[in-house]
C-alpha cells in the first residue's frame, strides 16, 4: 500500500511539474488557463488519491475523498470564471500583449 | 546574541508595513499597511514557544512539551476579529470620504477637508 501510494503521489507531482513548465512556456493567457483548469486539477487529485491510498480505508481517506470532490468541482469553475471575466472584458486571445485600452488603464 | 528566527521575521514584517505607512500616498494603501502590521503581530504571538514539529493544543490531556501554547491562539482570534472590524470601518469611511471630497490620497483629503 505504501509503495503504491508513493508512486501515485509521484505521478501527481510530475503532472504539477508539467504545469509549472507550461505556465512559463505558453505566451498566451488562454493557453495558460489550461494549466489551472486541467493539469493542475488532475495533479492535485492524483496526489490526494495517493495519500488516501497510503492511509487505506479509514475516516481520514473518506474526508480526503470529500476534499477531492470539492476540488474537482471548484478548481475548473474558478478557472472558467476567470477566463470568462477576461474574455468579456476584452482581453483578446489573438494578441500577444494586452490591447491598447487595457494597456492605457494599466492593468 | 541568540535569535529566534521567526521572531526576526515578524519584526521584519512589522517594519516593512511601517515603511508602507510612512511612504504611502493613497489612503487605501495605509489601510492595507495596518492590516499587514496586525499580521506581523499575530505571527509574533503565535511564534512564542515554537519548536519544530509542534502539535495543535487539542485533545483531552495533551503532553506539554510538543504542544503549542493555547493562550496566544485564543488571544489572536480576538485580535483578528478586531482587525476585520477596524478594516471594515476604515474602508467605509474611505468610501464616504471619497463620495464627499473626491479625494483618494492623504494630501488631497487634507486640502479638501480644510475648505
Amino acid at each position, binding site marked *: 500500500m505504501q509503495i503504491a501510494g508513493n508512486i501515485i*503521489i509521484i505521478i501527481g*507531482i510530475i503532472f*504539477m*511539474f508539467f*504545469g*509549472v513548465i507550461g*505556465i*512559463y512556456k505558453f505566451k498566451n*493567457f488562454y493557453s*495558460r*488557463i489550461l*494549466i*489551472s483548469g486541467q493539469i*493542475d*486539477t488532475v495533479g*492535485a487529485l492524483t*496526489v*490526494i488519491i495517493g*495519500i488516501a491510498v*497510503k*492511509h487505506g480505508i479509514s*475516516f*481520514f481517506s473518506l*474526508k*480526503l475523498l*470529500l*476534499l477531492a470532490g*470539492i*476540488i474537482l468541482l*471548484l*478548481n475548473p*469553475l*474558478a*478557472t472558467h*470564471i*476567470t*477566463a*470568462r*471575466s*477576461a474574455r*468579456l*472584458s*476584452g*482581453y483578446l486571445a489573438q494578441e500577444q*500583449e*494586452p490591447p491598447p485600452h*487595457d494597456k492605457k488603464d494599466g*492593468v | 546574541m541568540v535569535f529566534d528566527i521567526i521572531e526576526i521575521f515578524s519584526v521584519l514584517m512589522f517594519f516593512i508595513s511601517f515603511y508602507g505607512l510612512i511612504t504611502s500616498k493613497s489612503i487605501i494603501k495605509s489601510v492595507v499597511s495596518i492590516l499587514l502590521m496586525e499580521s506581523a503581530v499575530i505571527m509574533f504571538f503565535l511564534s512564542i514557544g515554537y519548536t519544530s514539529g509542534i*502539535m*495543535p493544543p*487539542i485533545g483531552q490531556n495533551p503532553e506539554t512539551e510538543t504542544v503549542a501554547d493555547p493562550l496566544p491562539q485564543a488571544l489572536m482570534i480576538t485580535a483578528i476579529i478586531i482587525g476585520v472590524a477596524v478594516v471594515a470601518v476604515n474602508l467605509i469611511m474611505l468610501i464616504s470620504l471619497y463620495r464627499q471630497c473626491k479625494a483618494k490620497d492623504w494630501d488631497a483629503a487634507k486640502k479638501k477637508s480644510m475648505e
Partner: protein
Amino acid sequence: MYIFWIIPVFLILYIIRIIIGPSVWDRLLGMNLVATKVVIIIIAFASLYELTYLLDFAIVYEIFGFISTIFISLFLMERKKGGKK
C-alpha cells in the same frame, strides 16, 4: 516527506509568474494555483501527524480561496458588456 520540499519550489515559481504576469487575470490564475498547492501541503501535513481534524482546514481553505478568486473576477468583469437584465 518529499512533498514538503517540492511543493514550496513550485510555489516560488508560481509567485514569480504572478509577479511578471502581464494582466490581472494572470495573477488571479496564479492565486488559484497557489491555493491548490497549499491545500496539498496541508493534506500532507495532516497525513504526517495522522490527525483527521486538520483536514477541516484544507476544506475551509479550498472553499475560501475559491470564493475570493471568483469574487474578484466577477467584480473585474466589465459591467457594460454583461448588461443588465
